[in-house]
């Protein structure tokens, strides 16, 4: 187990390194000489200042050396400086990360729980109205763009019914503490988390249903039935446990999409996470910040994939990770 974890971590680090290198070249592709852009942003673009900047950031050095400096910087969590926001990129991201984690993990929990639940129901009552209903419901949510679901949620629950706040992380100026604060944040969290969760819920529903119907026909289920076990026990202990394997795999594959969805959701709901930060960086063409967020997103996906691999191993002890 330990060597398996170590192997995965090493592999993840190598991929991350490759992403950082890719990032370096993307920065070089960005329009404009970085030094001139920076000087312009700092409000003084005379030759001396540009030259100073070039020296300070090592832009006068040959490309491989620049790459080395950049990778070394990222390794020590130095992601560069955002001149628009007048703060180090790493600091900006660090401030926003908890909000994104709260949003994505809540959405993930919602989508997985509801998806497995609906999928199980659909498979249990395959061919009935309930099954058709759930299938159509899943198909529709699977086809809706996240930003539109978000806006329709606002239209319905904030504008028309006035039940939920339409933006932000907490009520500004309320200065709530303790439980009242938690409730306030939860109220703000419901809509973004549901918006983000519904799309993935639809995929998990479809996957769970298909997978359960497939497992149901296998011999060991017949054996269980022949032993006289009740239907509920067979569904829960025999079918569901085996049917969940592809769902776990899918959850791992989807972690990148989840982060992408967070960018959209946070933008619409003004949720103060790194997705919103990415959007702001985009609007201001703040490439340092944009690419910094990109590296962190990639790192998050790698960590998430590692966790899914471990969960997969726990759910299915048969799997041996030999390489």
């Amino acid at each position, binding site marked *: 187990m330990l060597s398996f974890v170590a192997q995965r971590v090493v592999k993840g680090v190598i991929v991350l390194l490759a992403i950082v290198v890719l990032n370096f070249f993307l920065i070089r592709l960005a329009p404009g000489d970085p030094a001139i852009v920076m000087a312009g942003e700092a409000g003084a673009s005379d030759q001396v200042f540009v030259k100073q900047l070039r020296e300070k950031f090592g832009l006068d050095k040959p490309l491989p050396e620049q790459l080395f400096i950049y990778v070394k910087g990222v390794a020590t969590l130095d992601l560069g400086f955002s001149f628009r926001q007048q703060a180090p990129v790493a600091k900006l991201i660090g401030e926003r990360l908890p909000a994104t984690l709260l949003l994505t993990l809540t959405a993930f929990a919602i989508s997985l729980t509801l998806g497995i639940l609906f999928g199980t129901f659909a498979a249990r009552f395959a*061919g009935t109205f309930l099954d058709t209903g759930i299938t159509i419901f899943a198909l529709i949510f699977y086809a*809706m*763009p*996240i930003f539109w679901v978000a*806006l329709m949620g606002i239209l319905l629950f904030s504008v028309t019914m006035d039940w939920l706040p339409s933006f932000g992380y907490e009520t500004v100026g309320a200065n709530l503490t303790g439980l009242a604060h938690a409730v306030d944040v939860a109220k703000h969290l419901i809509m973004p988390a549901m918006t983000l969760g519904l799309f993935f819920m639809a995929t998990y529903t479809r996957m769970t249903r298909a997978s359960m*119907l497939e497992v149901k026909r296998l011999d060991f289920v017949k054996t269980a039935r022949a032993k006289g076990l009740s239907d509920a026990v067979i569904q829960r202990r025999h079918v569901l446990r085996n049917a969940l394997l592809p769902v776990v795999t899918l959850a791992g594959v989807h972690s990148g*999409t989840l982060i992408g969805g967070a960018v959209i959701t946070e933008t619409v709901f003004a949720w103060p996470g790194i997705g919103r930060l990415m959007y702001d960086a*985009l609007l201001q063409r703040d490439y340092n910040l944009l690419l910094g967020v990109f590296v962190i997103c990639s790192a998050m996906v790698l960590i998430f994939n590692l966790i899914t691999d471990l969960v997969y191993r726990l759910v299915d002890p048969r799997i041996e990770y030999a390489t």
Partner: protein
Amino acid sequence: MKQFWKSMLRSPSGVIGLIILLLAISVAVFGPMLFPNSPWRMVQRPFLPPFTLSAVPLGTDALGRDVFAGMIFGARVSLLVGLVSTLVALVVGVPIGAMAGYFGGKVDDALMRFTEFFQTIPSFALAIVLVAILQPSIYSIVASIAVVSWPPVARLVRGEVLSLRTREYVQAAVVTGQSNSWIILREILPNALSPVIVLASLMVATAILLESSLAFLGLGDPNLISWGYMVGAGRTVIRQAWWITVFPGVAILISVLGLNLIGEGLNDALNPRLSREGR
């Protein structure tokens, strides 16, 4: 072929999907001829509610532009970007997957590591970064969507080729001294085609969603109106004018739904064994 259409038309999802797609394509192709009004032109007072004037059936946006005209012209961009970026992704993914599966060994290892690398990078974030750096235009949008969507194609084709490579008819072709490229192109790929077609139809749907999301964030081609752009533009005035965001969103929903249904119908028609298992 006849058999294929027969089973395709037997599955209800396939039929509904085909109808939706045909409708969307005809809107995209003929719509702009029937409604020559530029979607950028001011035609009425701003914030005209829908269903009040028959000339502008879906009302106007914050600048008095015709929402209906925007939706018709937007169909072109959505479908075009969806189709072309999928084609580009296939052109990249199929050869990579075929070579990995056919040659195996080190070639397979190298190509699959490369594919996995692209699959690990969060796709939407990469698309945002690419379009932002290359500057938004229809070309950079198509390129970015293709870059983030080819890995599943490569993996699928690799798997198919891997299992077909050991078949006897392929062995026979090897024995008769056919060249590798001839065997891959003429013997293996035609037999690996059906799952790729199913995947491609679903990829067009995903590409449309991606394009609309990019346009929503302001990364659309500034010269072309698209559904995502319209929703994005209507976002700030959603409290006064719901219709600006609602209608283009419905258009995206219906097109994506149609393509997903076609994917299911194709799956039923091309892999009849698999589809019966689902019942």
